[in-house]
């Protein structure tokens, strides 16, 4: 569930009023970092931790340029995408000059009894530990957002920063923390892609393969709610696996041997159709992308 981690992170950043378009790049860099650290230390935990640090570093950068300096969030995010993708590919090239890092993906954890259920059993209850963790994180952070003062502060800052400031909330501190939290979760997302499934890294953004962008669409689909992000991520994850299954089975081979490429578009077409159908209620936090300067 790499998409879920990334989209919960983005929910928090956007709820506080900051758009982070760079998470595709954050995922790429942290994916590489987690692979390299896990490969050299042999510890998944170190790999995950290093990916979170890499995510946090990029989060600090994004928070600095958008919250502190106040440059356009969209452009800052796209630049961070280029920057972190470049760093990741460069580092990968350096590393592969002497070795070929590869790790064994985390084993699946079978939950007794439940995983034996027909049909849904293997899908829901026979996954690696990070998948369960992503559900837990979504629920805990959902509780934080809706049931705690912190969550109320975050939502206030994203909706009406002037009023939040008047109420004594440090607007830019809340935003900085949310952006960094969002980037850390994108880091976890990148790591979960590598140590959870693939076990390797590929240059040129073919590894993350658009999951970072999809996570941003999931945020809209989920109407900025961590709970609904679970359903959204599952649906778009389904898009990815459907494309993979169709390509494998050759159902569409009558369209020609190259039709597989077209099937890769399925998750994106999903995303577009959902935006068309659910456009009502897709109202973003009021001050999203608007920097806050105290008068």
């Amino acid at each position, binding site marked *: 569930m790499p998409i879920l981690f990334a989209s919960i992170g983005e929910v928090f950043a956007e709820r506080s009023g900051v758009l982070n378009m760079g998470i595709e790049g954050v995922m790429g860099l942290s994916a590489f970092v987690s692979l390299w650290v896990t490969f050299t230390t042999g510890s998944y935990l170190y790999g995950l931790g290093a990916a979170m640090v890499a995510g946090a570093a990029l989060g600090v950068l994004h928070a600095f*340029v958008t919250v502190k300096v106040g440059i356009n969030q969209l452009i800052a995010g796209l*630049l961070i995408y*280029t920057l972190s993708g470049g760093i990741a590919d460069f580092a990968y090239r350096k590393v592969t000059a002497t070795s070929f890092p590869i790790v064994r993906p985390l084993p699946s954890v079978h939950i007794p009894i439940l995983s034996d259920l027909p049909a849904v059993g293997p899908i829901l209850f026979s996954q690696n530990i990070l998948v369960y963790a992503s559900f837990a994180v979504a629920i805990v952070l959902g509780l934080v957002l809706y049931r705690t003062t912190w969550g109320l502060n975050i939502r206030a800052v994203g909706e009406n920063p002037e009023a939040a400031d008047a109420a004594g909330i440090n607007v830019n501190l809340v935003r900085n923390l949310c952006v960094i939290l969002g980037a850390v979760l994108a880091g976890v997302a990148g790591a979960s892609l590598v140590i959870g499934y693939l076990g390797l890294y590929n240059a040129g953004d073919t590894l993350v393969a658009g999951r970072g*962008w999809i996570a941003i*669409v999931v945020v809209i689909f989920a109407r900025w709610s961590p709970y609904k992000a679970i359903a959204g991520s599952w649906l778009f994850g389904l898009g990815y696996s459907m494309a993979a299954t169709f390509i494998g089975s050759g159902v569409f081979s009558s369209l020609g041997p*190259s039709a597989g490429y077209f099937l890769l*578009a399925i998750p*994106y077409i999903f995303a*577009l159709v959902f935006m068309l159908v659910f456009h009502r209620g897709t109202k973003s936090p009021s001050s999203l992308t608007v920097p806050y300067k105290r008068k």
Partner: protein
Amino acid sequence: MMQVSLRKYLSYLLGIAASLALFSAILLAFGYDPITSLEGLVSGSFGSTFLASETFVLMTPFLLAALAFLVAFRARFYNVGVEGQLYIGALFAYLVGSQVGTLPSVAAIPLVVLASAAGGILWLALPLLMRIKLQVNEIFPTLVMNFIALDVVNWLTAGPIKDPNSGNLQTPILPRSTWLPILIQGTRFNVGIIFAIVMAIGVFFVLYKTVLGYEIRASGANPRAAQSGGVDVSRSIIAVGLMSGGLAGLAGMVVVTGAEHLLAQNFSPGYGYQGIAVAALGTFHPLGALIASVLYSALSIGGESLQRSAAAIPIELTYVLQATIVLSVLIVQKWLGDRTRRRR
């Protein structure tokens, strides 16, 4: 007034100096010699007629993509889908170009040009309609359509329109009559380069010298005030949408008919995304984009030369340098801008 523009240039120089210092530090950290690397960047981009012409060939899609982004940006319409519109523009240019081979160039080239612009507009039509009719923010539809465009072009170039005699995933070569004429023999310096520069001047003229341009800028600066002042904001957005999609389509066309003469899979190294960085570097002004696109493509061509040279600096570091330069310039600019405002 003098003060302000002086500060603007100062911010540029400071930003570039800061990013070069940072980049040199990165190079040093990895054991490369920064002085020879930076020298290599300059000589690798303008060091010979051939390299200089390649810099201008690469400048063309950067410039057109940047114009496509900035013209919409000025009306606060964020067209992040330039990359996809560029691919569809290139596809349309190829599809029409491959059919009109029997026509003379005077007829064939305008047809190809129009087809590519139409392709770009077509690919922006859905997000544009969603924005105008349903008030859906355009950032995500335009972004998502990039990936669909890429998949469509990948599919077609791998199957239906693939050159059966080529091992590469690309179409056959276009008929000669559709090629943009070469202006300097022995290089790829073609009419498309002049065309893009004319477009930059054209966008400048529309934005700053026409009523439409005034309305566009008013809609972007403050949509509510513009609306109550009698400006039809939706009309401005439709106008910039048409211009933006068209320019993005043209950016794909100049690569296909100007430089490569065929449509290859993944031919764009992200011109559409980098165009956004170029537009930002050029302060979202069409003539600024002209200068920024030359700088940006010089860095890319210089970076490729560096990768081939004895120093063997990987191309990824050049991407890092490009992003660092744009970020530093934007940061320094914002800081200086804030300081002048506070003093007043």
